[in-house]
């Protein structure tokens, strides 16, 4: 690797100071003079026709300025694809999940708005509900949408090679049913915004991890050109996909209220609204069939996936795509068939979450592969190494892998003392210790349909400092820091010389968003290109002064010099001054955009690259299982992660650790308890996320597999570990108990019951 100044260094976060002092302002921290508060009235039924809405009592409450219902949006709907535009800001005729927004009020303060929302009287005619995705598919199930026969919201099918032939060639074929959990993304900052509608259009300070989604939605909803929609990004209190990558009733309603009243309007959701109504991970049932030779080679895999999509389609088509197109990694798979069904139910909406789509099917395939290896007497490491891909590799569905640290990752796990000592079963009293592993892959630089590039603009200030404008959002993952590192490195400057401007759609270049681990890869490429553009423009001035060729001008350590002539050198800021004041004075403005991912992607058939590069995560997990009570504690994790090249190792560690704990919550205890569409545990008291006292010792090892396409060789580092954690916990519990569990979350009750069953059956 080259000798870099800031790339590859453990650089503190650029937003650290603002965040540790309380200075960082989040959407709910904004207020404006004369501001009104918006509150949403929500349906108490999971499925019902709206017969009548009486807003008169709410309107009469002193302090109430306006009340709106679905009709005020004149039938406008939005969705992820043109043919899935089915969600209304406020449901006008029919509610399809409990808590769906039906009306809203604007009042002089939050309490008044809350009180008024409760005074809205809605007359409903309750309809039969459908809550189980397998029931929803059956003939005769109540149809939630008129257009969707058998309640299929989206289906996706892949068929490559010949699975039947593959199964015939196998020495062992196994079929299992797996279930993945219904969990919340878990950001602590509830969605919020302050909106203003005036003669210059819409201005909104909104808690969005991808501000350009709401930018487009608001323009469409209010019939404004995009130039009249200004989304200004505050600091964002966590995203993790789903809700903050989409628009909300509160966004549309607060803008409409501002249009009606001429006042700024604010809304902040409560945590109950978040847990009751916001986007959550799809829970899925995965029927998996795998064929394996005696030597462990996988001959074929067939998956049938049924996902609980909830009331609307949202980003579900991409979810279903990812459940299949990524199944051909990280192991060689000559024959693969995949049938995925996203079902409408009257539950809250399933959507994207970190590890999007991939975590479900990889969980199933990873466990099943190890179950079969066990039956065939093959070691967990051996079966993985037997099937592991190496770069370069093209899968049967034309996913191309250019860099791959999978084998090295698996070997790192296998070489660890804990793994080597795995044969010595450890038990203290009723506590059995188990060791398990997994090896998985995730995409970086995700592509979806339509616009997907990132862009950057770099403005050189006359004193040599730099303004860097990006449309990418740091919702906590640390992208602002790594992007500034890239700009600084390219220009030969220090971190303090580069100032990143957060998204303001009036100023920053359009960006698809912060999802699918795309920011470092795609916004990073754009940042580098913009910095290179600045260098090219500046080099002309240096070349003129020194009578050298512009391509021989070097930028390093805040100095500019001529290649091979070290005596010709000056500080960077001096060259900036020369450029800005010579002759008429130049305006140095660099620009660049990413152009990865322009090869073919067949979204219908699942052919082609869904990302621009792929990370590989190998993981060892240790657990303690109480064989009497079923209590499960995760004690240690070793994560060998190939993110290409870690551009900021401390942030890469932090991302892996965070993703791992989110994955641990999902694997071990997080789950929404549902009853006929009602979320029973819609509070953080009852919905359990990992706490400080639950945290295992987590060691992260960087596997270096420089990617030829990644900026400075980088791939993704934020989602791999959420895919690797659940299967590694389940294999560890199997090691401790001898039992294969197939359903998330792995609660003490499930473990205790299975142990009792095992004892009974001898």
């Amino acid at each position, binding site marked *: 690797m080259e000798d870099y100044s800031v790339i590859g260094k453990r650089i503190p976060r650029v937003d650290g100071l603002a965040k*540790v002092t*309380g200075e960082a302002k989040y959407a709910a921290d904004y207020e404006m003079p004369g501001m009104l508060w918006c509150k949403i009235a929500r349906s108490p039924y999971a499925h019902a026709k709206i017969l009548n809405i009486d807003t008169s009592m709410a309107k009469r409450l002193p302090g109430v300025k306006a009340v709106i219902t679905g009709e005020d949006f004149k039938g406008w709907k939005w969705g992820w694809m043109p043919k899935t535009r089915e969600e209304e800001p406020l449901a006008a005729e029919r509610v399809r999940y409990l808590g769906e927004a039906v009306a809203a009020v604007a009042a002089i303060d939050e309490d008044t708005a809350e009180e008024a929302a409760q005074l809205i009287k809605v007359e409903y005619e309750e309809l039969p509900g459908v809550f189980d995705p397998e029931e929803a598919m059956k003939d005769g199930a109540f149809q939630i949408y008129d257009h969707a026969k058998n309640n299929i919201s989206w289906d996706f099918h892949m068929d490559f090679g010949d699975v039947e032939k593959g199964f015939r060639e196998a020495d062992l074929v196994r079929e299992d049913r797996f279930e993945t959990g219904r969990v919340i993304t878990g950001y*602590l900052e509830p969605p919020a915004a302050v909106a203003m509608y005036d003669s210059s259009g819409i201005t909104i300070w909104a808690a969005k991890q991808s501000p350009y989604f709401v930018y487009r939605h608001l323009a469409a909803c209010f019939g404004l050109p995009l130039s009249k929609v200004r989304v200004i990004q505050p600091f964002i209190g966590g995203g993790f996909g789903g809700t903050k990558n989409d628009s909300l009733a509160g966004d549309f309603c607060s803008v409409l209220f501002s249009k009606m009243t001429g006042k700024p309007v604010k809304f902040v959701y409560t945590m109950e609204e978040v847990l009751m109504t916001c986007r959550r991970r799809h829970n899925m049932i995965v029927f998996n069939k795998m064929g394996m030779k005696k030597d462990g080679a996988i001959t074929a895999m067939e998956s049938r996936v049924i996902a609980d999509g909830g009331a609307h389609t949202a980003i579900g088509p991409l979810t279903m795509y990812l459940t299949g197109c990524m199944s051909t990694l990280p192991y060689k798979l000559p024959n693969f068939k995949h049938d995925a069904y996203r079902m409408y139910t009257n539950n809250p909406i399933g959507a994207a979450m970190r590890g999007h789509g991939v975590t479900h099917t990889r969980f199933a395939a990873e466990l099943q592969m190890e179950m079969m290896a066990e039956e065939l007497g093959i070691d967990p490491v051996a079966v993985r190494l037997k099937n592991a891909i190496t770069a370069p590799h093209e899968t049967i569905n034309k996913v191309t892998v250019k860099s791959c640290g999978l084998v090295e990752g698996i070997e790192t796990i296998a070489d660890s003392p804990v793994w080597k000592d795995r044969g010595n079963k450890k038990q203290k009293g009723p506590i059995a210790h188990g060791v398990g592993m997994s090896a998985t892959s995730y995409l970086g630089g995700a592509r979806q349909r339509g616009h997907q590039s990132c862009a950057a603009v770099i403005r050189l200030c006359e004193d040599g400092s730099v303004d860097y404008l990006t449309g990418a959002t740091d919702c906590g993952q640390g992208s602002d820091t790594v992007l500034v590192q890239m700009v600084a490195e390219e220009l030969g400057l220090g971190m303090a010389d580069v100032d990143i401007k957060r998204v303001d759609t009036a100023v920053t270049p359009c960006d698809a968003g912060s999802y699918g681990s795309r920011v470092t890869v795609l916004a990073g490429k754009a940042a580098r290109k913009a910095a290179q553009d600045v260098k090219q423009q500046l080099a002309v001035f240096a070349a003129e002064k020194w009578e050298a060729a512009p391509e021989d001008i070097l930028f390093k350590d805040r100095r500019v010099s001529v290649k091979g002539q070290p005596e010709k050198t000056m500080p960077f800021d001096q060259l900036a001054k020369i450029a800005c004041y010579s002759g008429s004075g130049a305006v140095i403005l660099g620009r660049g955009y990413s152009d990865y991912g322009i090869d073919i992607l067949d979204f219908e058939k699942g052919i082609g690259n869904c990302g621009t590069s792929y990370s590989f995560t190998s993981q060892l997990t240790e657990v303690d299982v109480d064989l009497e009570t079923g209590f499960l504690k995760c004690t240690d994790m070793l994560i060998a992660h190939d993110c290409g090249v870690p551009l900021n190792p401390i942030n890469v560690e932090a991302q892996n650790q965070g993703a791992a704990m989110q994955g641990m919550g999902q694997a071990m205890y997080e789950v929404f308890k549902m009853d006929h569409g009602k979320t029973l545990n819609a509070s953080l008291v009852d919905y359990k*996320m990992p706490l*400080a006292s639950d945290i295992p010792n987590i060691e992260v090892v960087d596997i270096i597999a420089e990617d030829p396409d990644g900026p400075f060789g980088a791939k993704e580092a934020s989602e791999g570990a959420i895919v690797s954690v659940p299967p590694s916990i389940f294999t560890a519990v199997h090691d401790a108990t001898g039992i294969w569990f197939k359903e998330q979350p792995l609660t003490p009750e499930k473990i205790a019951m299975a142990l009792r069953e095992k004892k009974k059956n001898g």
Partner: protein
Amino acid sequence: MEMKAIKFVLNGETHECLVSPWRTLLEMIREDFKLTGAKEGCGQGECGSCTVIMGGKSVNSCLVPAVEADGQEIITIEGLKKGETLHPIQEAFVAHSGMQCGFCTSGMIMSAKHLLDGNPDPTLEEIQEGVSGNFCRCTGYTKIFESIGAAAKAMKGGE
């Protein structure tokens, strides 16, 4: 409902004001004093994002009635810095990447301060216990433990 007159010290300054018995300490701090470092995450005393120190103890300010501030000394995240100089805990959180999205950070640092004020040399288990009332969804907590450990060391003179 009758307003109540209260007097308290907030980040070193004495204040007297009238508050409604329904107002929470968090609302008073954020809305009346415009100190928005303390956050409302859950509003139920579960997430810890609203943690401040009152009377030497860390409290969930979303659960404390503002009237209880009467006669108390309150410190919020905004009160930790001395001029331009960060508190050692703040320094450590920056240096060790103890925050990601930052929403829990104010509360986390105030819980850490309460811990270290009473126990300058905590073990890992004591650190975990000390911040077990504060949710963080981003970091997986490990870097937070490292930050608090480093702060403890720095506050003892770095030995």
